[in-house]
């Protein structure tokens, strides 16, 4: 489903302060897989995830999603892929403080949905699925860290994406709440067949993944 072919990523290429974040990375991620990518800080795991998530382009190499070469698409086409095929879960949750839980879940589709009522129902169902049926109208500052991360998972699931990309999903949570989030991601992966790629320092993720990749100095070492 996701094919990364000989991807290189350099920051400030050709300059004195050039940084090579990824070195000739190749990898295949199958539909329905739960892939855990770990590695020390600065090893390039977030960069890899941004490239897979169509947020960044590789300096060299190609990325395919469902046989579409995403590494050569324009901004508008990438936005559409991010909206329809990818769900993001961020370490810092990144919810809009002025919107309530339901509105935050609706955000990816709020400008394009023709049937707002259907969108609202969908958001409600997803929040119920992540155990927040009683927090629909709560604003982010009225929710705990774990609850906020559940809202981002519900938001990531809105378009029934093919892949959820989770960047340090447990990074700002205590271990118990963090495990709850990992369980939830596994549940989504199993029940919906959604591919999950999680980048994390949290080795507990290993317990829930199908495949564990280790990154070091911009290379996959295992």
């Amino acid at each position, binding site marked *: 489903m996701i094919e990364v072919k000989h991807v290189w990523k350099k920051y400030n290429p050709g300059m004195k302060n050039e940084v090579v974040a990824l070195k000739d990375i190749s990898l295949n991620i199958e539909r329905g897989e739960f892939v855990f990518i770990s590695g020390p800080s600065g090893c390039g795991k977030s960069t890899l995830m*941004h490239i897979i*998530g169509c*947020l*960044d382009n590789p300096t060299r190499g190609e990325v395919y999603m469902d046989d579409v070469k995403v590494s050569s698409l324009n*901004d*508008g086409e990438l*936005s*559409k892929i*991010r*909206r*329809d095929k990818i769900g*993001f879960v*961020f370490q*810092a949750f*990144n919810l*809009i*403080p*002025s*919107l309530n839980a339901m*509105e935050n879940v609706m*955000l*990816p589709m*709020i*400008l394009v949905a023709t049937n707002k009522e259907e969108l609202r129902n969908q958001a409600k169902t997803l929040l119920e699925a992540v155990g927040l049926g009683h927090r629909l109208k709560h604003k982010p500052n009225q929710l705990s860290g774990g609850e906020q991360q559940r809202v981002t998972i519900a*938001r990531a699931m809105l378009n029934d994406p093919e892949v959820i990309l989770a960047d340090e999903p447990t990074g700002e949570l205590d271990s118990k709440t963090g495990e709850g989030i990992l369980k939830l991601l596994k549940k989504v992966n199993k029940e919906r067949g959604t591919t999950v790629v999680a980048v994390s320092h949290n080795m507990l993720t290993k317990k829930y993944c199908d495949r564990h990749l280790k990154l070091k100095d911009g290379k996959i070492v295992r």
Partner: protein
Amino acid sequence: MLKIVFNNMMRRKLRTALATLGIVLGVTVLVSIVSISTGMTQQSLDALGKLQGIQVIKKGSMDPVMSSIPIEYADEIKSMTGVQAVSKQVWVWATSIEGPSEGFSLSSFFTAVLGVEPSEMGLIKSSYSASLIKGRQLEAGDRYVTVVGKDVADEHNKRVGSNIEINGVDFKIVGIFHAGSRFIDSQMVIPIDIAREISGFPNDRISMAQVEPENPEDAQKLARKIELRMDDVDAKTQQEFSEDIGELLGTMKTVQWLFSSIAAIVGGIGVMNTMIMSVMERTKEFGMMKAVGWTNRDVMKNVLLESIVIGTIGGVIGLLLGFIGSMAINTMIGGLAMVTVELAMESFIFAVALGALGGLYPAYRASKLNPIEALRYEG
């Protein structure tokens, strides 16, 4: 999207209020000032509409009060072919009516005392005699009597038969006219000899000669003939006066728009400042919005819409305050300001456009944010 916009505006209420206030002040100033010029234009046009015949005054004079021409000119014009009658007039300001006025009064500011030869009154068409509503006009042999405009009578609570003191001299009101123009209805007509007496205007000069052409259609041609014969006068028909005054008021309106625009542009800069701050604060949010599929255009629309909403709210409030301001001006100095539908629409569009312009750069900046850098931003 509107809900997101409103929610965001409410996040920093004071900042939004201050940005809106900038627009409000600009529009209020604009509406108040332009309404005065619009009102003055209307008043002038009303007054000009009542003018009759040809007005002959000193070349370059803006107003009969500032003009002085030799009295012989009146007889010379009278002898010209195509002239039916000529009225000699002396115009002076009423420096005091019923004693020196306390503070500013529009009617005394505009009150001109017009001295005419009573025996000539019946010969020419005049806006005073044509609009007499009470009493009579001046007659031969009249001395300290006056025919006053309705605004003067109303302001000083006078009727036909009352006495009125003009520049320290008592006059008996024998008639009241109502031409429907503020400028004309603020005037008083007295015998020309008495006008000279109270003002010291020389006996061998007059302020203006009002000429009645035999054929009104030939007025313009006759005016040119008069100007050819006497090269130190301006002879103007009503139409020519309208053109001159229209041009003058047009320039005045442009200057007022310019000044008001400066005030409003300051408001626009306020909006821009607010939106730049808002975009900086929300950098991470825009990064997330882009990550979840919002396009550059969606982000741009979101920011732009917010500044347009600020402009719209500012425009509506500014328009209301401007309207109230112009009503206050009317109450204080009487029927001068005028808010037309055109002015209201122009000011409103101006406010919305200002909001949009203020938001344009911040919106562009937000739309061009790199999502990864935006997500990493720690403001």
